[in-house]
């Protein structure tokens, strides 16, 4: 085995899947060739060799400074690197392993995550193999008790959910990164030491010194900012001696991937108390390449060693498939144990170190919020780091990362906790009420709500200090609230309002019907000098808008209707696609000032700039 020091990060409970990369050797898979990524000697090591040849150690100050070092090459770390690159920021990703994550793991990609993938130019690659879905069925024994129907309409570019195994997700992102000169992905590189130097504020000349262990030994790496994306048992979290707090649940699940060429449609199926798992729960999902995923709860007194044996797993899957009438032949590929947690750090920022994904929070899998909330972390942090590195914002913007994403974590906890208690009732009381709700749901519509699996939904930064709240006098009847992601509207076949954010690298101002207002478009141009991209939504045909990149053709007025917008109304969108202000029309000079104030606020610069220097 390579000289990678792995022992120190292991813990006795390592057989549980908390969503992280388990150090592992390559396995044979029925459907996926795990690529082997070589270790390549980095410039830092060459510097050290040159210095050693001259009889000296390399000076820390002589090391190159990476603007951002991302520790961990899972979905959140890879997406963060792509987000930074989109804003022109270089990063280095340090991944301990030599290949992508093993098995299906986080296999459900939410619509919001697909929008994030589109933002970094990777949505097309996902859609090639992902299986989109919109509905699901929950059974109590063999009776359907709940039909899950996720919101979907022709206004949406993406389905509410799409299934793709995590190894395939990571492979798509790695391939995308290979075409991105701003990202350096270093495999077989484990961070084993860390020291913060100088002040931790954005306006000071501090840095972080990492010690990276590789098959060829250790080397020092200097970075302005470090992002820990190294999973549930984050090594960075341990180096900083930080602890997660919250609650853990007792219920254990066995997760298995198997290949089965069944024509059954892609949907979420859940069984409560089926004869194949009496008193417990089973979940099934179809995935790409004829792969299926089954999650079944283990009995309280089950022996893990017995349950994990291949014979036992095969026997249990066979029983369940026979009971649901599935007679397609199948082959087992991968198994794993899982336990649910609602745990997070008190602060997602520690000086020059940020935590994203499972390194910051562990959430139950029920409702598919693990990877999806991790990608939202990367989406939130990327533009903030870029704005600070570019000198467009100060340290206060970085301080907004924790309140925005920790609020999202607690929203996830509230929903996922409820799902977990329903899926795996921990006590007699919870079980009795669960069974009562299931039985009532056979005959009472209102009781079916108890069975709703509460699938992942995007979090709106309504109470964020960066959000300019909707003015209650403005009386918006629909459209995204300030803090919500920009809502999708289909403007003409295959063209969506959210497309106007493609390739943007900063704030975007959407102006409805500017040509119809007294001042026309010219009056808005000063905002371009403030770094705001202008998008004019006009009732013109696609052909009429063809030559004008800042015109969004809305021939039927669909966007204006969906946003309850009148001529001259504006929506200001942050670089991460969230609306930070929506403003009813006002005289254009005043409107420009309101837009600028909202942008200052969204850059956390409002306080310093709005305090008058002298009176």
């Amino acid at each position, binding site marked *: 085995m390579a000289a990678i020091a792995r022992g120190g990060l292991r813990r006795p409970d390592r057989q549980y899947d908390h969503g992280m990369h388990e150090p592992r050797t390559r396995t044979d898979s029925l459907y996926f060739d795990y690529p082997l990524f070589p270790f390549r000697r980095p410039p830092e090591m060459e510097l050290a060799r040159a210095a050693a040849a001259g009889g000296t150690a390399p000076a820390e100050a002589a090391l190159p400074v990476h603007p951002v070092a991302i520790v961990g090459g899972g979905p959140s770390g890879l997406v963060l690197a792509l987000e930074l690159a989109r804003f022109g920021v270089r990063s280095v990703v340090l991944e301990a392993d030599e290949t992508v994550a093993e098995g299906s793991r986080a296999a459900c990609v939410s619509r919001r995550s697909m929008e994030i993938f589109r933002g970094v130019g990777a949505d097309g690659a996902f859609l090639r193999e992902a299986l989109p879905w919109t509905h699901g069925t929950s059974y109590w024994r063999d009776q359907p008790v709940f039909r899950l129907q996720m919101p979907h309409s022709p206004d949406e570019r993406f389905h509410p959910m799409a299934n793709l195994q995590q190894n395939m997700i990571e492979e798509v992102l790695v391939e995308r990164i290979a075409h991105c000169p701003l990202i350096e992905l270093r495999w077989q590189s484990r961070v084993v030491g860390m020291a913060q130097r100088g002040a931790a504020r954005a306006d000071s000349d501090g840095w972080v010194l990492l010690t990276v262990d590789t098959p060829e030994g250790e080397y020092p790496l200097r970075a302005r900012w470090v992002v820990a994306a190294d999973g549930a048992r984050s090594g960075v979290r341990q180096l900083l001696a930080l602890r997660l707090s919250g609650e853990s649940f007792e219920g254990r699940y066995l997760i298995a991937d198997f290949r089965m060429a069944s024509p059954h449609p892609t949907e979420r199926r859940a069984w409560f108390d089926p004869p194949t798992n009496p008193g417990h729960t089973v979940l099934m999902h179809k995935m790409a390449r004829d792969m299926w995923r089954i999650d079944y709860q283990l009995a309280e007194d089950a022996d893990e060693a017995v349950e994990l044996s291949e014979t036992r797993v095969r026997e249990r899957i066979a029983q369940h498939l026979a009971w649901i009438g599935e007679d397609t032949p199948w082959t087992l590929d991968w198994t794993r144990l899982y336990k649910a947690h609602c745990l997070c750090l008190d602060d997602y920022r520690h000086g020059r170190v940020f935590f994203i994904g499972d390194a910051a929070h562990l959430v139950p899998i029920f409702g598919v919020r693990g990877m999806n909330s991790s990608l939202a972390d990367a989406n939130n942090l990327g533009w903030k780091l870029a704005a600070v590195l570019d000198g467009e914002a100060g340290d206060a913007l970085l301080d907004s990362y924790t309140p925005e994403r920790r609020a999202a974590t607690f929203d996830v906890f509230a929903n996922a906790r409820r799902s977990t208690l329903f899926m795996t009732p921990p006590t007699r009381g919870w079980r*009795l*009420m669960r*069974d*009562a709700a299931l039985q*009532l749901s056979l005959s*009472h519509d*209102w009781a079916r709500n108890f069975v709703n699996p509460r699938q992942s939904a995007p979090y709106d930064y309504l109470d964020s200090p960066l959000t300019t709240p909707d003015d209650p006098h403005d009386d918006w009847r629909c459209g995204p609230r300030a803090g919500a992601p920009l809502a999708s509207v289909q403007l003409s076949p295959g063209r969506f309002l959210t497309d106007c954010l493609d390739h943007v690298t900063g704030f975007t101002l959407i102006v409805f019907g500017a040509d119809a207002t007294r001042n026309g478009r010219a009056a808005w141009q000063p905002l371009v000098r403030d770094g705001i991209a202008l998008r004019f939504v006009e009732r013109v045909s696609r052909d009429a808008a063809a030559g004008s990149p800042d015109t969004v053709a809305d021939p039927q007025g669909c966007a204006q209707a969906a946003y309850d917008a009148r001529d001259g109304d504006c929506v200001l969108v942050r670089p991460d696609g969230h609306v930070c202000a929506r403003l009813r029309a006002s005289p254009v000079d005043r409107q420009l000032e309101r837009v600028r104030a909202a942008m200052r606020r969204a850059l956390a610069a409002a306080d310093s700039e709005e305090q008058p220097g002298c009176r």
Partner: protein
Amino acid sequence: MPLTTEQSEAFYDRLAEAIDRAGPQDESLFLAKLALLLAHALGNARTAEAAIEQALAQLGPAPPR
């Protein structure tokens, strides 16, 4: 509007008979379903939650002096 004494007594009788019909195996499940149905029909979260606390009070044998 509270039940009349007559209505309360009739409900008391029906409930006693229903617990016997459910049997020892299912009486808890039956009572849990009943509570959810009644709370839904009541349409008043505060009253429903107060009823939980009132029913929990003084359960079991009296505490030792």
